[in-house]
């Protein structure tokens, strides 16, 4: 009934029409490119592209709201952490020091540090939308077959796709259990303090977890009975042939990986230094 936290979103858009393989290659290209490249201009372009793709995809922010929140919180914590523990790292990297706000002890806010942290944050913005989009626009069986086609062992690929398949079921189960526990007074809404909430959430998750283990046990028996794992390979009913747009997307992925490698040489280092 309600949309899953993270999973396939059935609202056909241009990205849904692409083959799972090409989307996976694109997502991997973005991840790899962003891992290599620390050039803020490159990251800005990739981030802009990722956001544009999101706009094209017809996936709504609301669909993945929870995941986006989690990522936003994590990115914020990460930024605070970097500043607390290494406020001088920007200066170290770029070799200059422009103090914007003088803080206590070594916590001076420098332009270099802000620039460094901007780069790190841009990595999130560049990488995550494309990965989320891949998951949201690829139907789980195709997702599994795409992984298998690029060489991931099929058991592993199928496990991932199966996890996605059962997310809606687990969510429904969670709602049922949570209703019963709330009716017993185990409130997990904002009305109670954080500690009580955490404890009550535990009382909801425990039955869910045990139930999930049982379910995994019975699924694995059912799959074995139907011959899963009998041979070194398997065929896939759902498989889409590659079409020209898929080839273009994969070429784009290649460019995304090549660009930061070229930039490494041009910049003479991993970072583009606007301060020098």
């Amino acid at each position: 009934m309600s949309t899953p936290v993270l999973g396939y979103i059935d609202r056909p858009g241009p990205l849904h029409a692409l083959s799972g393989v090409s989307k996976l290659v694109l997502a991997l290209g973005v991840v790899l490119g962003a891992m290599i490249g620390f050039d803020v201009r490159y990251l800005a372009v990739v981030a802009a592209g990722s956001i544009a793709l999101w706009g094209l995809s017809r996936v709504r922010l609301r669909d993945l709201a929870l995941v986006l929140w989690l990522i936003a919180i994590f990115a914020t914590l990460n930024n605070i952490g970097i500043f607390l523990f290494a406020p001088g790292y920007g200066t170290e990297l770029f070799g200059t020091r422009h103090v914007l706000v003088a803080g206590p002890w070594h916590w001076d806010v420098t332009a270099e540090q802000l620039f460094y942290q901007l780069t790190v944050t841009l990595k999130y913005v560049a990488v995550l939308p494309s990965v989320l989009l891949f998951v949201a626009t690829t139907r789980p069986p195709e997702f599994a077959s795409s992984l298998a086609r690029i060489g991931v062992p099929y058991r592993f690929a199928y496990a991932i796709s199966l996890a996605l398949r059962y997310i809606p079921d687990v969510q429904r189960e969670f709602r049922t259990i949570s209703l019963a526990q709330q009716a017993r007074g185990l409130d997990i809404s904002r009305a109670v303090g954080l500690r009580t909430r955490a404890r009550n959430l535990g009382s909801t998750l425990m039955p869910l977890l045990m139930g999930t283990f049982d379910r995994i046990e019975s699924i694995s028996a059912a799959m074995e009975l139907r011959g899963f794992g009998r041979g070194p390979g398997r065929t896939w009913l759902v498989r889409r042939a590659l079409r020209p747009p898929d080839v273009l997307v994969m070429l784009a992925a290649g460019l995304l990986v090549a660009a930061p490698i070229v930039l490494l040489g041009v910049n003479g280092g991993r970072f583009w230094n606007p301060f020098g």
Partner: protein
Amino acid sequence: MPSHTRDAEGAAPLIELAEYSFQYRAQSEPTLHDIDLTVRRGEKIAIVGASGSGKSTLISAINGLIPHHHRGTTHGTVRVGGQDPATVPLVSTASVVGTVLQDSNSQFVGLTVAEDVAFSLENQQVPHDEMPARIAQAASLAGIGDRLDASPQDLSGGQKQRVAIAGVLVDDVEVLLLDEPLANLDPAAGRATVELLDDLHRERGTTIVIVEHRLEDVLHRDVDRIVLMADGRIIADAPPDDLLASGLLEEHGIRPPLHVAALRHAGEPVTAAQRPSRSADIDLTSAQIAAVRTWVDAGTHGPGSPTTDGSTPGPAPGSGEPGAPGTVSTPAEAPHAPLALDLHAVRCEVPVGPARTAVLLEGITASVRRGEMIGVLGSNGAGKSTLARVICGAEALSGGKVLIGGVDAHGWSVTERGKRVGFVLQEPGQMISQPQVTDEIALGLRAQGLEAEEISRRTTVVLEACGLTPFRTWPVSALSHGQKKRVTIASVLALEPEVLILDEPTAGQDFAHYSEFMGFLRTLNATGTTVVLITHDMHLAVEHTERVLVLSAGRLLADADPAVVLTDPELTRRADLVTTGLYDLARRCDIADPHALVHRFVQADRADQADSEACR
């Protein structure tokens, strides 16, 4: 069908167990003892037995999950398609015997019907182009060919089961082995499954082995043999007519078809010669018809007889004098008790997907008086659970109102409602989070911030009421399913709600456990708790409630005496329920009020149970 059996005698044995015993590695006792069982090609057999009788283990022994998935010690021999499952890979046994597990949702691994049916083909590396034709063929055999693109969320329980059947038929298996195929289905879907299996058996010659304890439903179509199990042994292996006449079923915790039990109560038990499997075509003798008529009359006119445990509830005076005819609407009978729940034109509309909504409930007006024990009946998807969710505040109303204890509950949180209306889920595992019984019961009380003294007082009271006092210090994991269920009820009762709502309280329990559990609920009811049972089990409603609300497609079809509902073919058809054998029996004995026979039956059954409890 004797001729059929004779054919089968000549056919080659497909499954053969000889002096077979099995002990799970983690257990101190063998689960199966000295099993001798032969299933020949083209046979259709039912394996019945109470919980813990070893039925599921027998399935694992046949389909190769023993020893490939479950380890333990084996004695004796097993041959499936001429081979020992232990010495060949699991898949080669699976290519002879296709297993359909109990929970068809867990078996559904694809995202659509076609993908799920294809699963086995994919694993065999069947080329992509050959798959669609084979999928379409298997799916149409299983009667699901028109839903190939549907996703599991869009299918009913019965349809998911058909997908599971198609998923094994795609391999051209010779035997279909089904583990409690009816456990999660409503009566109409259950019958449809039994009919489908019968068609496969007749038309395709598939050998069918059904493991089930809902025998009356299985016997809706002929089977060649019934194998009765108890305590890990085969007690009987005989044609259904012989077994029904033998009385062995009752002895081993299996409920015989209701018409068979009724004839026994009437003092004229069935014989094998009269083919007693089905109420519609049993050869009734004139002596039996006369006996039934006398028996029913005795119940109706004997004013003293209905003094069973049900007629002594405290706050509900006169609730259900079960023998009285014309008890169509109970509210009139308990006019003094205040209303515990009062629903006015309740409507519930929820969004399903973008820009679409579904109306789950429409115009439900009904009430429950304090001290009543009522049933909410309907097929899966009729709106029973939604009704409970609306009362508990999990689903918002889009019209009408819900009064709890006479007060409009609008704006109350789930927790506030929970103090007045306790909600017990179907599976105890869905509610239990503490390792110890007393902690589990105290959990909700602690959350309310009650004093330690009050917590221990209430815990003691509910432990006693639920018969759990001897187990209070036990770890929950050491309890049986029925005991765990009692723990969840105790934990809700501790909150001292006025109304207890139970979702499918007896699903999957065998007759003995079911009777014991319902007896417990009736005692609770007798001491003042109002009980609402959500169920699709007609027997349950007839035997243990005074009144039922019948839902279908979100609307209230009837608010009446369950015996009246049960014997109304038109109403049961519209609600996807089924009339039971008692209705046929009444019709064939020319009894004007079929529900009089139902009431008489319930009365006799309760007296029987009281006797058997007294013996213990």
